[in-house]
Each structure stands twice: as C-alpha cells, then as structure tokens.
C-alpha cells in the first residue's frame, strides 16, 4: 500500500546552494525547499555534512574574541538554574538521538484508506508549516492550478508556497529576478531541463527562464520557494502574477 520510492532523486541543488544552506545564508523559504530535498537524498546530506565540517574548520580558525570577564560564571549560573529540581528544561537530557530508532510512521492509516492515489509522506521539515498534504484548503489560482501559502513574503522578498497542478497544465513561462527552488512532493513535472519526481529539486537562478508542465496522470504537488518575486512573461503570466504572488 505504501508507495515507496524505489529510486533516489535525480535532480539536486548545486554545491553553491548547499554551501549557502549550510552556511546559513539562505532565506527561510529556500532553506525549506533544500531541507525537503535533503530528506530524500543521502548524497546531498553527505555534501551538507562536508559544508558543515568546513564551517567547523572556519570556526576553529577564527581568532578568539575576548569574552566578558564573568562569561563562564554567568553561563554556569544559567545552567544551574536549568538544572534546579522541578525545572522542566532538565528533561532535555534524553537518550542520544543517534541511539534511538526513528520510529516515524511512513504513512498514516488515513492515507492508506484513501484508495488509488497514494498520499505521500510529508517530509519532516514541512511539518512545522502544515500538518499533512491532505485536508489542506487549496486556493484556486487559475484553471488547473491551486495553491497554499506556506510562508508569506519576507522582508527580503522571499516566499514559499505549495502548488497543486493538474495533469497537463503548464505554468506560464517565467523569468526570475533571483533564486527559485521547486521540489516535488508528489506527482511529476517536466521542464526544459528534464523530468522531476518526488524529492527532485529544480534550481533556477537569475539567468534562466523555464516553463514547468505537470506531466503525469495525477496532480503534481510541489513546493516553490523564491528569494525574489518572479517575473512572468507572456499574457497568461501577466494575468496570473497578481494572484500567484510568486
């Protein structure tokens, strides 16, 4: 019943994108898209571990900055208060995570009861934003395109949303003022660069324009994150832009 992927993602973020994510210089929406891909992709997690090791080495190399005179004492005081009996923070000393079983159910019973359309597992990074993919109130944007806003546009112009695209629907051609990441949660889409399934991540930056088309027999649900508003080209795009808010 569980529709397990038998293959690993084929489309990955660039090293530059993983460096930005690991360094902490990527906005929240783009970071969310990368994190969803990482939950599917052992190779990129290995690269991320290397980026973070680089961060650790850079930290080691920094000339130490002098601390305030009572810095350690102040920290130990705070630690004492946390360790005091009755403080709920004390419960944080738990068994190491790496010794525990993951125990995460791969699909919910409700998902299994739904018949032919398998409801995909919601990657954990997304669970901070939505409870599940089913039961969301999708807002209709255009024929064949519905959306749920995950992250309203931030001060830096970024945003993240889920799009649900009916089979055969083409999103308008759009160019980009910045970075755009699309990661597939279920179904497939295709663009000039290839075909994308669950976990695959399409990375588009300032110099590209693309037209994704949902190309399988069922809806394609994907997460789209940007760090700057998109510029749709073509009439359809201009009509949709105010609504799609990308």
């Amino acid at each position, binding site marked *: 019943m569980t529709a397990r992927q038998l293959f*690993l993602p084929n489309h990955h973020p660039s090293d530059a994108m993983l460096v930005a994510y690991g360094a902490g210089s990527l906005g929240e929406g783009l970071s969310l898209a990368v994190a969803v891909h990482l939950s599917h992709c052992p*190779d990129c997690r290995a690269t991320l*571990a290397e*980026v973070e090791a680089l961060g650790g080495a850079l930290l080691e190399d920094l000339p130490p900055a002098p*601390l305030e005179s009572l810095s350690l004492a102040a*920290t130990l005081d705070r630690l004492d208060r946390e360790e005091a009996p009755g403080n709920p923070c004390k419960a944080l*000393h738990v068994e190491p995570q*790496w010794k525990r079983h993951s125990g995460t159910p791969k699909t919910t019973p409700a998902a299994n009861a739904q018949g032919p359309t398998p409801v995909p597992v919601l*990657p954990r990074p997304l669970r901070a934003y939505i409870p599940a993919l089913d039961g969301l109130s999708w807002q209709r944007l255009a024929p064949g395109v519905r959306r749920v806003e995950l992250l309203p546009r931030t001060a830096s112009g970024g945003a993240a949303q889920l799009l649900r695209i009916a089979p055969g629907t083409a999103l308008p051609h759009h160019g980009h003022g910045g970075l755009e990441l699309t990661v597939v949660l279920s179904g497939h889409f295709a663009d000039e660069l290839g075909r994308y399934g669950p976990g695959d991540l399409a990375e588009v930056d300032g*110099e590209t324009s693309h037209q994704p088309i949902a190309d399988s027999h069922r809806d394609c649900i994907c997460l789209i994150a940007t760090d700057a508003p998109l510029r749709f080209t073509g009439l359809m795009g201009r009509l949709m832009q105010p609504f799609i808010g990308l």
Partner: protein
Amino acid sequence: MIAPLATLLTHAAGPDRTGTGQPGTGQAPRVCADPAAARQSADLVAVAAGDRQAFARLFAHFAPRVKAYMLKLGMPAQRAEDLAQDTLLSVWRKASLYDPAKAEAATWVFTIARNLRIDALRRERHPEVSDDELLEHEDDRPPADELLDGDRRARRLRGALAALTPEQAEVVRLSFFADLAHPAIAERLDLPLGTVKSRLRLAMAKIRKALGDDDR
C-alpha cells in the same frame, strides 16, 4: 592554518582518550595527529553525562570563537557575547544528541551557532532535516568517520582550507561570514553568477577530497 590550540592543552589529553566514541575500524595509524579534535569530541560526550569540567574546557575553546563568528557577521558586541553564551548553553542542553561518529565537535558547535544566529537576527527558521529521517531510503554508506578517523579528518580539513585559492577562499568566507548566498556574492564581487558557483563547487571538491569521499 592550524588553529591556536596550545592554550587548551593544559589538561593533556592522552591518546587513550582520543578514541572515545569512535568506531575505530581499520584506521590507518595516527601520525602526528592533532589531538584537539578527538579531545573535544570526548569532552562533548562527557558533557552529555553532566561533566562540568569538560564543559568549562569546551567553553574556553569555543565561546570566544563563536563570539568572533557573531562579531564577523555584524552582531554588536553585547549581542555576540550573549549568543556565544547561548550557544554554549545549547551545547550543554543538546550534548546527548551529539554523535561523535558523525561530526567533529567544531562542526556540531558551528551548526548550533549558525541556527541561533538565524533565529536571533532574522527571526526566521532554518528548516532542517534530522539525522534519523531519510525518507524512503536507507543510507547504507558508513559514517564518514569510519573511513577516516576524527583526528586525521580535522587535520586534512585544515589542510584543504589552507589549499583553497584566494578566489575560492574569498567566496567561502563571504558565504559563512558575510551572510551572503551566491547571487549576493556575485553582486558584491561584480562577477557573473556562474563564476561564483564554479568557485564554490571547486572549493567543495577540495573539501570532499580531503575528507576522503571523492568517489561520488
């Protein structure tokens, strides 16, 4: 490029401690290994068991560096001091989550400092994927440190860092210390985006090679 570690070695860490928590299978013999990395790992494991002396040693080493990291990223001095303390406090709280087979202590402390900075500065989250969750697939590769033990890993990593070209080092430092993603780096340096991406890719290739995982 070896970090100034001598000040930390007042409590000598013998080789008997360096293996703590390491899988230790089929490793090459250690030649002039830098004991600091393994010692910090051992201290972190001790902190998970509530060892305050180990915590004080980690604090003495990492808090001034985390503060320097925050200052570099433009935090005011008081905020940088607070975040350095917060980071080390978080090290205490989360020490039981540290897996010495997966990362060096410095790597782990870096990720905590990075996340606290993002929380503090942008009031944004840094969505992360936890180690126990890999959808659909089992990662059957051995942990990196089974391929290369912690000491050699740290040493080779520093070597790779020193071997970056000035152009590569520049984009790496802007990524980590200026809060700039690659498009913003391209703008800052007035370079084509492709050039910045390629410098970062080449830098990562050197890091990957140094960590012994260059067959991917």
